[in-house]
């Protein structure tokens, strides 16, 4: 028999080891799943984790794509992680992402045609502001009326999706698009495009912003009083109140910060890889970023690598579909396993497993 024994302090070793253990367990369980589906499990795992990085056929294209896919995930997850640490649950980053894309694109297209250098920074600011304001709705409802920010932010995702669908069909519809839905293609307008900055890396301004956000969040959590307050509010809310932490202010700050980052991520996506506002613009980055935040243990550096890992499972998962004919649902189940195992083995950081002989107490 065995029993769980709470550790006096979380084990440093296991805090760092559990993500690797979770990935290993996912490979095993995923391999079993793929084998049951009649596919070669070793080939599938190799396609997902190894080929996008090292295969001669795919790596030259897939490697830069890692940053393209991971950039928005990291940017959003960094914002979310601050709130999550403080016990403020912004589940609606997808909505803030969509609104950010909408506001950023609208701000630029209002000046069309233009080649001013100031349009792009203006669009970035508009995207951030859009996401910020969208996140303020649940934040202010929470501080003024004590509504549940989880529900409000989540439901606002659906409102945001309706707004962007309406924009694609009406006020942002490309006048030269023969009546078809979708805005002008920002990636084809030099003043508004968000291109690859260094050829072959996949790095665009969104990737730069993601890396900057990792740095800022790291310094803030380690060195700044706000970072201290966030950690304190999450670990000991009562103590935080005695220590003079204004919880309303913290909610507004955390929601606003995550909303602004999600909005920026949306804008960088619409002006670069996506190109245009379309009816189905939101592709789930805002929700996947929640997984990334936890996979990275709400730690900025961890989130950076978690974002890359998540992107790898997407890109490799597509390869496995193409080459082995695995169904998309199997890949999604595989990604789900990753989060499941991570949360499950998290236990080891806070508890130790004691084996006890039968009869002993």
């Amino acid at each position, binding site marked *: 028999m065995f029993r769980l024994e709470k550790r006096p302090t979380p084990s440093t070793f296991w805090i760092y080891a559990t993500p690797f253990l979770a990935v290993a367990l996912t490979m095993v369980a995923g391999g079993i799943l793929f084998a049951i589906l009649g596919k070669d499990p070793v080939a599938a795992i190799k396609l997902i984790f190894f080929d996008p990085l090292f295969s001669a056929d*795919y790596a030259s294209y897939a490697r830069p794509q890692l940053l393209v896919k991971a950039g928005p995930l990291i940017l959003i997850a960094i914002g979310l992680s601050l709130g999550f640490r403080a016990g403020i649950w912004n589940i609606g980053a997808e909505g803030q992402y969509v609104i950010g894309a909408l506001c950023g694109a609208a701000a630029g297209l209002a000046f069309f045609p233009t080649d001013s250098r100031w349009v792009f920074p203006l669009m970035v600011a508009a995207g951030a502001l859009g996401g910020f304001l969208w996140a303020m709705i649940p934040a202010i409802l929470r501080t003024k009326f004590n509504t549940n920010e989880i529900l409000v932010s989540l439901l606002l995702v659906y409102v945001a999706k309706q707004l962007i669908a309406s924009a694609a069909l009406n006020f942002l519809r490309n006048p030269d698009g023969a*009546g*078809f839905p979708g805005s002008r293609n920002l990636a084809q307008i030099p003043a508004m495009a968000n291109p690859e900055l260094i050829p072959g890396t996949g790095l665009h301004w969104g990737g730069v912003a993601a890396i900057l956000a990792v740095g800022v969040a790291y310094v803030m959590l380690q060195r700044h009083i706000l970072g201290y307050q966030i950690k304190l509010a999450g670990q000991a809310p009562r103590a935080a109140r005695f220590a003079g932490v204004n919880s309303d202010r913290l909610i507004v700050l955390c929601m606003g910060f995550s909303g602004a980052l999600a909005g920026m991520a949306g804008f960088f996506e619409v002006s670069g890889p996506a190109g245009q506002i379309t009816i189905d613009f939101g592709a*789930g980055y805002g929700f996947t970023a929640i997984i990334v935040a936890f996979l990275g243990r709400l730690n900025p550096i961890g989130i950076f690598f978690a974002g890359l890992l998540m992107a790898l499972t997407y890109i490799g998962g597509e390869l496995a579909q193409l080459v082995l*004919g695995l*169904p*998309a649902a199997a890949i999604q189940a595989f990604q789900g396993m990753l989060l499941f195992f991570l949360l499950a083995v998290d236990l080891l950081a806070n508890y130790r497993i004691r084996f006890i002989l039968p009869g002993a107490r």
Partner: protein
Amino acid sequence: MERRTILKGGAALGLAAGLAPRTLLAADPVKVGFMLVGPKNDTGWSQHHYDAAMKAKEKLGDGVELMVQESVAEGADAERVMSQMALGGAKLIFATSFGYMDSVQNVAAKFPKVMFEHATGYKTAPNASAYNARFYEGRAVCGYIAGKMTKTNKIGYIGSFPIPEVVQGINSSFVNARKANPKVEIAVVMISTWFDPAKEADATKALLDQGCDVVLAHTDSTAPLAALKAAGKFGFGQSSDMAEFAPAPRLSSIIDNWAPYYEERIKAVIDGTWKSQNVWYGIKEGMVGIGEISDAVPADVKAEAEKIRDGIAGGTVHAFQGPLNKQDGSVWLKDGELPDDGTLAGMNFFVEGITTKMPS
């Protein structure tokens, strides 16, 4: 005895094996990519493309190898998937959703030796074709039947988004329903999704509450037919035959039939005769099918509807023919005039007589 049979079998196998490589070597399988916007078993749009791909492969045999990617989001994901297909050796890639249009153009420019086929868009390139179906031709037949079958003189239409394809369908249904019955009115509901059984059922009930007794759906599930069956009213199969609802409420159906086109285009790649084109096929080419008109429809109406179907196929009947005005009363088509494909493809207005305003 047994041993001898085995030996014989082995010899036969060996002989077959000796012959087989010749044919295999002669034609290395051509890899063909299919990118779907939804799951391949969504019973709607994506499944039709997937099933058609499988049918085409069945016809063409071992010379074709499919690479299928389902549930691909529009934008960056679509570009990546197509690039990976091209890197993986695909010679021909079908992108089966309107929203993939710009991605197809970008990837086609990067891989000039790979051929692309984009469904329902309008942009082409030397190595990228566009193909679409004239669904509005099918709507003309269904609209005519609806006009004859309604007792309340009110028909309903469930649309997804006010994009040209949907607007064409609404206008075609209404114009031809009016031909059957000058007193008919149409109520339009847009539900902002192509597939959502719950929403589709709600929209059907809302239309029934407004007094509609025939409802046409431009969304892919069978939920509207189920709701119509419960209410004892009429409807049509959409995108697949939905024959399980015949003879009532399903009076007929409008069927997406991509398989012949896929077969033709894959074969063109194998034969080396593939050329970029922009096609808009209808009933004549078989891309739009009209399902069996059920016995719930009186024989004379059925005969008339079949005449319209055959007339459209033969080019003697048209879904839209002047005189027709736009909703605001301005002239669209003069007496006897036919619309050009450009106007049709970008249709963003309702015709006169439809009271629903274009959503904005």
